């Protein structure tokens, strides 16, 4: 059973971009608040910052994501490859951004934060792909 090429491309792009590193640094800094600040509202604030952090990480690598989408589209990649790319990139960034929330050890809020992060990342990546697809289709016709 082989690995979906989209997943490998996503890992490669994230590894070579700066977004994941920034995300990791900020998640590590946010751990201070998770571990040392025992305030009732701190977790909600961390969830918001985590989502913004993930969105920033995706947007900071937007050039690389655009290039990959162009390449995938031009090379006639299967839709499953594109979806694999979007899901892998979104999930990876979501999990890294989730670190400060998970450190508070609240299962329900961690799951909520994961879904918010994933939605934020996907809502940036997938419309980007659709825009590129539309642009290339209109260029051909």
């Amino acid at each position, binding site marked *: 059973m082989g690995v979906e*090429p989209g997943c*490998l*491309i996503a890992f*490669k792009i994230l590894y*070579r971009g*700066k*977004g994941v590193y*920034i995300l990791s*640094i*900020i998640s590590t*800094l*946010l751990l*201070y*608040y998770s571990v*040392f*600040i*025992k*305030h*009732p*509202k*701190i977790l909600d*604030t*961390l969830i*918001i*910052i985590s989502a*913004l*952090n993930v*969105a*920033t990480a995706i*947007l*900071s690598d*937007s*050039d690389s994501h655009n*290039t*990959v989408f162009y*390449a995938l589209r031009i090379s006639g990649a299967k839709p499953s490859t594109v979806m694999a790319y979007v899901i892998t990139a979104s999930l990876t960034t979501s999990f890294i951004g989730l670190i400060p929330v998970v450190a508070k050890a609240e299962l329900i809020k961690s799951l909520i934060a994961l879904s918010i992060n994933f939605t934020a990342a996907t809502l*940036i990546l997938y419309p980007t792909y659709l825009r590129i697809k539309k642009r290339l289709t209109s260029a051909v016709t």
Partner: protein
Amino acid sequence: MLEIVMVSIYVAVLMFSAIHVVKSFRSSHHELREEITELRKDISSRIIVTYKVIAGFIRSPILLIALFMLPACMVLSAISTQYSLSVTSRDVGSTGIYALYIRFKTPISVSELEQNLNEIGGMADLYVRYIFDSRIELILDDEKLPIYALVGIPPNKSNKLLGGLQLNDRMLVLGTTKSYNLTVRLFGDEHSLVSLNPEIIERASIFYGTPLLPVEAYLGTKPVTPPSDKVIITTTLTASKLIGYLEPVITDVTVEFGEGGLEGVNVTRISELIKRYNGVAMILRNNVLETLSGYGLPTTESLISALISALISSIILLVTFIALQPRVRLIYSRLGAVGLQPWNLTTMLTIFVGVLVLVIGTVSLALIHHVFGIYSALNSFITFSISTLIVVLLINKKVFNVSIVEVVPTPASTKFNLIIKGRDMCKILQHLSELLRGEEFFELRDLDMRCEASGGFLHASCRFRASWGIGVDLDVFTGLSGDGNVELSFNISVWSIEELSTSQLESILRLFESKLLGGLEVWVLSQAA
């Protein structure tokens, strides 16, 4: 006198200037009107340019995220200040006690607190420790006793606190050496007055370091209480009535737990409770006494928290603005055509971002001050000022500085000519195409070939098998040189979807080139044999 002279000089100079302005305006009326029209056009065109620059900038979602990030980090800073201001802990030595104590500034209705107390858990003992605004007189048979304070204790605790005395709702206790055992009328109700050894009352404490008698002030860390003969002690219920409440009220709560029982206590609920009713809570975990209060001064922890949140917001703001760099260059390339200078654009964008960040930060500060209070707002201000300073300085130098030369990587390519003696031109091209078809490192994706008597060409596009997204384009033009020799012009270029280094691209180029030339060389030699 001097004032009058100064005003006269000022009026004279003003009138002189006004007359000259009117004169010059009359003399060059037409020229001035034209200049004003030009100036208006200039100003309106600048406004339109500025609007276009800023509109192009505002439309990017990444800017919106950056602007959300600053208030979020300020709130983070504010929240952590609230926490670090309200909790202090110290080692008090082994006590063997695991208990919670909450003190309220004013009496609070028991019914109002009941739900909160149930959520905290454990069995609560409710007390009233109340100091009267002005003293009251307790009239006995032959004397008047001034009373300054009232203490209400739960009946089940009286045995322990009052040296074995069993208290009831109709009993008042006074800490005096005089022996009293009489009935007094207080606020319309009859009560029996009992005297007790003052030492017992003065020694009694409801929690670690908290005496039974209400604290009037502190001398250093030592509490100062009213004398025990000036304080009436009764049950919590009677005390509530005596201070004028129709329903039971309390000012102090203690909850005792067994070892490990405090782990399940809802500290969040306690924090909310003391914040709401302006109280102080203490948690004693054997040797550690934690004090939670709504007051305090900024601490080292709160400063660290402000610096970390400033760092986070600065990093995110910078990253988002760096991501906006291509958009800035696009705007500049458009506006550069109408004569906008790079420094002009840099200044314009820096001022715009600076004003935007300042407005958002100030509004957030005002809201934080309103919701979290002055200490949190102070910490948020530290976060805000550091972030703004770093961001404005760095974006001015690095992000919006469009005059910085951008290095664009050039694709690796090579061009060379080859002359082969005494061979058929079309056969050479045919052999090249066969070589490409059977190539182990490169997969042939596209091939065009045409060969005529006077010349021919071959175009091939290959994919590098070992890695995704790398390919080679080959163009070969053939022609006849003198003496029937065939001249081949090779044009090979390597492309990559990803941004590979020049050395990587060149090594792929060399591999392709060597495979091509080697194959051709072997073919020529085999033909000669």
